[in-house]
């Protein structure tokens, strides 16, 4: 495998992980979020600070930063209790802008220069680079996907989906919307934080612009494109949207235009996502009877 391929594949793996976290919030709990890059950034900045300022190793910093992001996610999920749909979408945009501004304007976070010198992790005296790092990302992606699968099948997952379908009816059945919305934000943000940790130690240098609003758009597009609320949806979305710019790379000038046009075409003709109910793929290959 060439270095180029490994790099692209690692980035796709990281985005798939972060998008799966967003899928918990948007797909399972039905809470639209356009600020997911903020949590991706909080994870990355947490690990960067823990490693460069406190000198923690990657293996300590990974769970710690994930936990921190999850807690902040619980806190920033509180607006979802008060506002819905479009209002929530705009609030989360606001959260993204404000978090990015804090990274940019508070000197503690390194300002516009960002934070450099984030160490590459080592395992058994081997520096995890290239294919090793890709393997690490894929293992963690597999673990979280397994977790999402368990979550979707669990009572908690079913309760969360019931709340998405009909909050009032679910409430009448004793499903507390406070508990399950905050839970969804916590899990989803923690997964974004984990992705942020992997990103920071992969590129070794982070700056506020890596976690701006366009990244949130890309993440939500991955979830919607793949199929919301489907376990494999965000992963497929990440593969498609992560590789499209690379496929179009020879057409330097038109690359981003084709990216926008492709996204527009899919959402216009497959609004439920590639794996969603009623999509072309589902109609061509209907589910067998069980």
């Amino acid at each position, binding site marked *: 495998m060439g270095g180029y391929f490994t790099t692209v594949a690692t980035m796709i793996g990281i985005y798939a992980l972060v998008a799966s976290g967003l899928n918990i919030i948007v797909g399972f709990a039905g809470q*639209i979020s356009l600020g997911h890059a903020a949590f991706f950034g909080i994870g990355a900045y947490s690990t960067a600070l823990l490693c460069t300022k406190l000198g923690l190793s990657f293996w300590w910093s990974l769970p710690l930063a994930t936990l921190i992001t999850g807690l902040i996610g619980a806190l920033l999920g509180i607006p979802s209790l008060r506002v819905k749909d*479009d*209002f929530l979408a705009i609030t989360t945009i606001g959260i993204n*802008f404000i978090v990015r501004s804090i990274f*940019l304007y508070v000197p503690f976070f390194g300002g516009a220069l960002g934070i450099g010198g984030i160490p590459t992790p080592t395992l058994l005296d081997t520096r995890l680079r290239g294919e090793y790092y890709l393997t690490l990302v894929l293992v963690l992606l597999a673990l979280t996907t397994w977790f999402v699968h368990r979550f979707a099948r669990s009572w908690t997952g079913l309760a969360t989906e019931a709340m998405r379908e009909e909050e009032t009816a679910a409430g009448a059945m004793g499903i507390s919307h406070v508990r399950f919305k905050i839970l969804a934000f916590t899990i989803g943000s923690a997964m974004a934080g984990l992705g942020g940790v992997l990103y920071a130690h992969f590129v070794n240098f982070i700056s506020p612009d890596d976690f701006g609003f366009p990244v949130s758009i890309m993440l939500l*597009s991955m979830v*919607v494109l793949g199929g919301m609320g489907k376990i494999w949806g965000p992963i497929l979305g990440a593969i498609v949207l992560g590789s499209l710019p690379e496929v179009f790379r020879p057409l330097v000038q038109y690359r*981003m*235009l084709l990216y926008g046009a492709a996204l527009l075409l899919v*959402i216009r003709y497959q609004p439920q996502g590639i794996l969603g109910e009623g999509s072309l793929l589902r109609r061509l290959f209907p589910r067998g009877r069980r």
Partner: protein
Amino acid sequence: MQLFIEHLINGLAVGSIYALMALGLAMVYGILRILHVAHAGVYAIGGYVGLFAFQATDSFFVAIAAAMVVCAIVGVAIEKVIYYPLLKYPPYVPLIASIAIFLSIEEICRILAGPYILGFPRRLALSPLTLGSVSIGGMQILVLLTSFAILLVLWFISERTELGLAMQATSQDMAMASAMGVNTKRIISITFAMGSAVAAVAGVLVGIYYNQVYPTMGAVPAYKTLAIIVVGGLGSIPGAVLAAILLGLAEALLIGYAAVPLPRDALAFIAMIIVFMIRPQGLLDRKTR
């Protein structure tokens, strides 16, 4: 005092440009419940068409008219080709489509006109108005007069004509309006045409005011105007205008007097979050609903 009044006028000018942009967004939200992010793309197109028309004819009015016509066509095309078929899906689907349109428009502008900042060839010769010790720039007068005229025309259409009545009815209850004989499909298109034409004016005015037209000029307004229409009460047109002008004033005075460590552009979102906490229905209640 003199400086204060100059900041105030500047804030008013910037605020009225925000108002022109937010208007179209509030109109579209009022009628289709879509967050029309691509509106800022239409505004950038307005800036470019205005610039090219101005280069060709040297006339401010031709520039405005050309931009309005082109943007109205683009706006209606977006509505007919993309939004209308997506109306039956949850609101995030048209929202993502809108963001994709916005990205594509930015890229088309960059490919056609180059990534550079273009300036208007010759600043319009406008002499400043001097009142006592306060002098008001010619640009500011132009911006204020144009936006005021447009707001007046829109107010007249919406409050004093049958078309305005039909538009209000459609935004209150589309099915009921349709049952009463309103051609709602046509009203939606007219709304898009009007909103986009007003955004075009905003694009031309910004281009002249800052002497800058560039492909990503819509990026900051795209999200700032969303915050504005929330502060104004989603879908409320007078609310959006009021919120836009207040924001323009607040930004100008903040830059003028307070040394805050936050960027100017974050102010809109902070205002929005405060409004959510104390007045979730926005500054002005939508009298209907």
